[in-house]
């Protein structure tokens, strides 16, 4: 067992355990803080996949923005967080069954695929993403200019929508 494999197994174990705690803990604040740990674990896996850029972006967007916003909202709504009763529905076992079925189905389907046990990487070792090529592809009319523009429109719409929804309007209530 090589060093990389050990790093992978440790990171994956921490990530999965904290992910399970995220969806089961009663205190929403604890789950939100563990969500941060999960996201960090995922970014470690990105590094192992030789995607250093996306590892940094993962920390930047998911931890710096998404998790921070979630923590903010959890702190704002703390007065209605009732931790005395379970935070899952009565028939949570059904949800557990569904997710278990999904997991088994995914693994069984994938394991019949011939590339499943592949060890050989397609990218050369010691090289990350080709950022220049990625940047050019994002603005290339024959590449991904359209999805890129759609994504930017989505972000603008989101920004306007979020400001509009969350703003306190005078004269209401």
């Amino acid at each position, binding site marked *: 067992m090589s060093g990389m494999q050990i790093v992978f197994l440790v990171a994956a174990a921490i990530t999965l355990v904290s992910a399970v705690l995220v969806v089961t803990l009663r205190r929403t*604040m604890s789950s939100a803080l563990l969500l941060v740990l999960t996201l960090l674990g995922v970014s470690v896996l990105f590094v192992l996949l030789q995607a250093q*850029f996306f590892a940094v*972006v993962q920390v*930047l967007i998911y*931890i*710096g*923005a998404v998790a*921070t916003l979630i923590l*903010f909202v959890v*702190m704002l709504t703390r007065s209605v967080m009732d931790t005395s009763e379970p935070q899952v529905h009565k028939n949570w076992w059904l949800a557990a069954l569904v997710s278990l079925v999904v997991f088994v189905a995914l693994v069984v389907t994938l394991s019949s695929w011939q590339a499943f046990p592949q060890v050989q990487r397609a990218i050369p070792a010691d090289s990350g993403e080709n950022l220049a090529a990625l940047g050019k592809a994002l603005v290339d009319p024959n590449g991904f200019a359209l999805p890129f523009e759609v994504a930017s429109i989505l972000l603008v719409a989101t920004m306007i929508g979020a400001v509009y929804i969350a703003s306190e309007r005078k004269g209401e209530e």
Partner: protein
Amino acid sequence: MQTFLSDPVTAITIWLQTLLFSWGIPAVWVQLIMIIIGSLIVCAGAMFFVLFLIWYERKVIGRVQDRFGPNRLGPFGIFQTIADMLKIFTKEHITPLGADKIPYNLAPVLIMGAVLMMWAVIPLSKTTVGADLDVGILYLVAIGGLGELGVIMAGWGSNNKYSMLAAFRALAVLISYEVPMVLTMLIPVMLSGSMSLNGIIAAQNVWYIAAAPLAAAIFFISQIAEVGRAPFDVTEAESELVAGYNTEYSGLKFGMFYVADFLHAFTAALVFAVLFLGGWRGPGAEQIPIVGFFYLFLKTMLVHFVGVLIRASVPRFRVDQMMALNWKFFTPVSVMLVILISLVDKAAALSQEIWRSLLIFAVNGVVFLVSFRLLDIFTTRKERPSVVTRQLPVAVGAPQRRNPESGVSS
């Protein structure tokens, strides 16, 4: 000997590597050991340097306020911080009742670690850089996010409403000021065509503060807000929030917040010097890397000194004023700056470095003039109609003893 004098870090690294190889340690482990030693030296060096920084800052602020500053222990009171440090080591750790233990204890570590992790990508001289990441700038911003997380955890874990309020404020301020900071960081990236800090330094034949002074100013001010120092220290406004999110901390844990604050201010100055003042560049720094280290140090101390002077002399903003300043002024101006600089730079496509810098300087100047003219127009107070009446107001229900017809006084 020649190389040792001109570039000691590389010389020592090579010597240590050959020593470890000669002991028969495999290459992977040698690399690992070198990384660990390097990071330990950087962390320890930064921590010891803070001792000097705290003394320096107290001294400067003391002078500004017409005091002596620390002057008891050692020459010029230079050992005062060491005495303070020893005192803080002996203090009791108090955990408040109902505290959320894990976040409470993890927060100081996270805040301190977030500051120290920034040092990993900053090139201290031509050859001395921890990790020359391709995405060094993004790394710096991402690590800043970890610091925010520490603030939240401190505020939440303390089980104190003032800490919580301070954490809310800190979070709002940090997220907001990240926007103009990242936008103005984009300008050096755009001009140099590189996101690695060494690449940005290598491209700065003309310092970017000369080419883009407005961007540099906005970046500097948003960095002060990110660090959370006066005039933007609303997070620890002692008249409103006791002491901010670190109210409930004592002993060494408080010490970590304190040290992180001072070190963060210095690190921010370091980042500014790298992005806008040419980093280690200067006459002779290419040939003799150790000289570059001193140039960088001088530039950083200059920037830091300006920050300390601002801290000592400008009164604190209100939190809503701070937000208004960010969202209504800095963010639009920096968006305009990024768009205009990229458009003009691409359209003109000047190959001569000096003309390109002048052009960008002109764009900066135009944006500066237009934005301040608009600011003037929108913030001028309008003449309000006078509300003073001729008659003096009469209090309702006042006793009217002098009126003979009313008879009874109330």
